[in-house]
């Protein structure tokens, strides 16, 4: 656990007045507010720090204690004679979508070792009020090759295990709502919801566009000119394709149903688009060169 310089966080000096602190806090809170910086983890962390700093420095009692013990904060406990430190289980991998009201979970260990577990006191007028719990946001990282088929996952959010079947064909950035897996409601109010966003990393050589896949396939010059058979890799194995003589570079063919599964429509697939990339030989032998020259001469005397 490290000492946290709350003055540095608020970018003010140690003699700052209450008014300076308020101004500095407001400014930094505006800049880093999670609602204005969606999906920005740095801003979110900074926002929490700024709130914690304000919590201490805007309270004359806490500020006095903080200033007094300063860097010797580790001895503060001895002065206080109280094992006020509380163990606080932390949730892994879930962020609070609802940033408006802070609980002790949002403050650092440093804060709780000095001031005890209690964070901001909640607004009055809430006692006994039945209200829905906070919504949580979380990310699940998957590989593209994983989401080609439906699969079961177990994740832990907020100490609860959630068993999920991830349907084949989920999109990168797609968010699903899981009812009741957010924060606990107050006084018997319903639980909040969990918003789970899939981050799908492409670990294949295909480019995914919706349900369709795209790929480039090298074809050697002779097969392109004379025609023949080539092997095309797809997500579920290889297929053989016939090439007509005189196949042009950049020719695109569509393999129906060889694309990506359509989300929540079992048995339905997108298409695979294969673009041929005809490879012109770079280093040719003397013998080949002679043959190419012969071909070139033939062409010149041809009908074209």
């Amino acid at each position: 656990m490290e000492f946290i310089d709350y003055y540095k966080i608020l970018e003010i000096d140690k003699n700052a007045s209450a008014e300076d602190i308020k101004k500095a806090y407001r400014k930094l809170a505006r800049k880093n507010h999670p609602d204005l910086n969606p999906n920005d983890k740095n801003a979110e962390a900074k926002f929490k720090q700024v709130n914690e700093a304000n919590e201490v420095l805007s309270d004359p009692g806490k500020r006095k204690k903080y200033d007094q013990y300063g860097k010797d904060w580790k001895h503060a406990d001895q002065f206080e004679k109280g094992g006020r430190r509380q163990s606080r289980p932390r949730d892994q991998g879930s962020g609070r979508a609802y940033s408006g009201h802070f609980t002790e979970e949002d403050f650092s260990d440093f804060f709780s070792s000095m001031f005890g577990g209690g964070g901001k006191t909640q607004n009055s007028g809430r006692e006994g009020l039945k209200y829905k719990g906070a919504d949580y946001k979380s990310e699940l990282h998957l590989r593209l090759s994983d989401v080609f088929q439906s699969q079961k996952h177990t994740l832990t959010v907020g100490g609860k295990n959630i068993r999920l079947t991830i349907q084949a064909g989920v999109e990168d950035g797609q968010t699903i709502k899981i009812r009741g897996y957010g924060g606990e409601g107050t006084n018997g109010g319903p639980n909040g919801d969990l918003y789970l966003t899939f981050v799908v990393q492409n670990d294949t050589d295909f480019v995914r566009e919706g349900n369709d896949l795209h790929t480039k396939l090298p074809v050697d010059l002779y097969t392109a000119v004379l025609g023949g058979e080539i092997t095309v890799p797809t997500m579920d194995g290889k297929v053989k394709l016939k090439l007509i003589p005189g196949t042009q570079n950049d020719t695109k063919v569509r393999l129906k149903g060889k694309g990506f599964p359509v989300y929540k429509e079992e048995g339905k697939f997108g298409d695979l688009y294969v673009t041929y990339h005809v490879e012109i030989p770079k280093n040719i032998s003397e013998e080949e060169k002679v043959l190419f020259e012969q071909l070139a001469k033939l062409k010149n005397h041809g009908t074209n």
Partner: protein
Amino acid sequence: MEPTNHISIHTFCQYHGIESRLIFTFQELGLVEIVEEDTELYLEEEKLSRLEQIVRLYKDLDLSPEGVEVVIGLLGKIEKLQEEKRILTRKLQKWE
């Protein structure tokens, strides 16, 4: 279809420590929909997180309701642009 639960404006305002007048101002600006049922006024639970975001912007950032409207509009635009950017980036991969 999941059934839509309604939260009374009274409860919402009490919980967030705001006056109901503010909700009506947001309604006039087209940021909130209010449902009327048996002369009581309600908010749809499905749209609660959006309204909570609006209230946070109003309270945390000290914005006027009009300021909140501008911010919400811009956030919507950013989201749209990010989505477009994602699609374009993916399309570009085909040419690389």
